[in-house]
């Protein structure tokens, strides 16, 4: 048993039970979500651990991590604040929102705040175009939508994280 199985054994079994027993590989995406809960990104060791469970190589697992944008292969902030600046949101002011938010938080697009807490990124459509400006927050464990936003509201949210995390 590898560390992932030790920690999440039951959950992993439940995931595997969703797919035919000869199609274990289908579980790679759900298992990567489980693995990512640990550190907010997938480590080299975890690539091997996920591969072991499914009987595929860690290179194979790495290619999946590289292909899908919600998996990360490098550490970022504890919170990834992902602003949608795709066309429909941009028509409703998302570009300016994104720029203003970056300058208020003193980060470059794609960068992380000086306290290491928040990574701010521009992302593609999140199926919330009627409630722009909007962003999602990806933490280690979940993804939450924040819609009909203002820069002030977003900065308040970041401040509340800073308080919780003693920054």
């Amino acid at each position, binding site marked *: 048993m590898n560390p992932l199985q030790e920690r999440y054994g039951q959950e992993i079994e439940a995931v595997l039970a969703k797919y035919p027993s000869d199609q274990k590989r*289908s579980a790679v*995406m759900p298992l990567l979500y489980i693995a990512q809960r640990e550190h907010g990104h997938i480590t080299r060791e975890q690539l091997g651990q996920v591969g072991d469970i499914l009987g595929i190589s860690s290179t194979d697992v790495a290619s999946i991590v590289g292909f*899908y944008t919600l998996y990360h292969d490098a550490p970022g902030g504890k919170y990834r604040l992902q602003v949608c600046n*795709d066309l*429909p949101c941009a028509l409703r*002011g998302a*570009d300016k929102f994104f720029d203003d938010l970056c300058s208020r938080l003193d980060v470059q697009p794609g960068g992380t705040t000086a306290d290491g807490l928040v990574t701010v990124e521009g992302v593609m459509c999140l*199926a919330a*175009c009627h409630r722009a400006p909007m962003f999602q927050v990806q933490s280690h464990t979940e*993804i939450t939508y924040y819609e009909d936003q203002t820069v002030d509201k977003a900065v308040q949210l970041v401040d509340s994280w800073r308080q919780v995390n003693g920054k």
Partner: protein
Amino acid sequence: MNEILLRHREIQNLDQFPIYRQNKGFETFKHAVTAMNPAEVIDVVKASGLRGRGGAGFSTGMKWSFIDNKNWPHYVVVNADESEPGTFKDREIMESNPFQFLEGVMLCAYAVGANSAYIYLRGEFWQLAAELDKHIEYLEREGFLGDKLFGGEYGLRLYTHLGAGAYICGEETAMLESLEGKLGQPRLRPPFPPTFGLYSKPTIVNNVETLANVPLILERGADWFRSFGTEKSPGNKVFSLCGNVEKPGNYELSLGTTFRELIFTHGGGIPRRRKIKAIMPAGASSSLIVADDKALDTPMDYENVPSVGAQLGSASIIVIDDSVSMDWLINKTVHFFKHESCGKCTPCREGTYWMQHLTERIHHGQAKWDDVILLQDVATGIKGKCLCALGDFSTEAVVSSIQRFRSDFEAVAAGAPTPVAVRAEQVSPK
């Protein structure tokens, strides 16, 4: 309005199981499983004329009848990837009318003889998937899902599966690859999923909205369904309205409603006394329609939208006002497709890369007219030469805007300041 898909706006708490049951929920499924054979279910759906709401508008009943009955087991895969920029309808249906959606999935599974159905949701719909999981568990406890349903032989299990941020996984064969745990890259077709789908087995892939229509079609009949919409595009459609419009949101209207009625009557028109300039009726994959009177009076259905030079697609209506310059707009759409190209075939992978270089230069006023022509050439070179439709999609806005909004490009090529300066001042109307 709201007769079929967005009924939760009329019936309070329809997202709760007891209320859905009070509104005849799951009676149709029970009746189908206990009193109809699968072919009869398919016949009703065929007769209704329902067409797929995921984009291509293919006859749903016809697709179901293509399922290969010589090869087993069969699967149903629900396309809940909803990633086309401008589209947010499946999300509302699954969030607010989840049981009708699930009953549609269950009826489809019964009709095509599938004992397992996977609902593939985009990874960002993480919370929504957790809600659906709860509903599925509940349905198992209540005896609507599981083995030997209603004392008969038929059994069915539903599972959710989360994607992880890749637009291409909305393409049905890429979705199947992704569900098999591989890179989300499209397959060469034929063979099509009804003969060669998930795990190489016969598979029906349908969009969320498509399936959400099915319970009422079975309950009330094909003729009732055909009393909405047009002859060739029966039923209602959820139009996702967004962009430069007063009241963006989802509107369930008859297919064949005009752009004008959607944008001006329901959507409240254009904010800040701006004028409407263009419409993209199928999200970012769309050609740009010049929003003149002829276009505004065009019925939004599968047969009429092509007459103004676009497709209805997923009916994600993006409204663009006269403060927007097209060089800015196509820079956005090309950026999207460049980012989302899966890289499997050269024209799309390389073509979107070159288009992005050009649209960046043009938008930043660093280009001459020759570059606009070059951009047009690159786009034309991509079109029709790709493995999947994403390649073509990436060119639609580019080619149509250079053709139909030429003066925008002439202005930037001549070094005029682009009206997008106005855009940067703009704040959300909220």
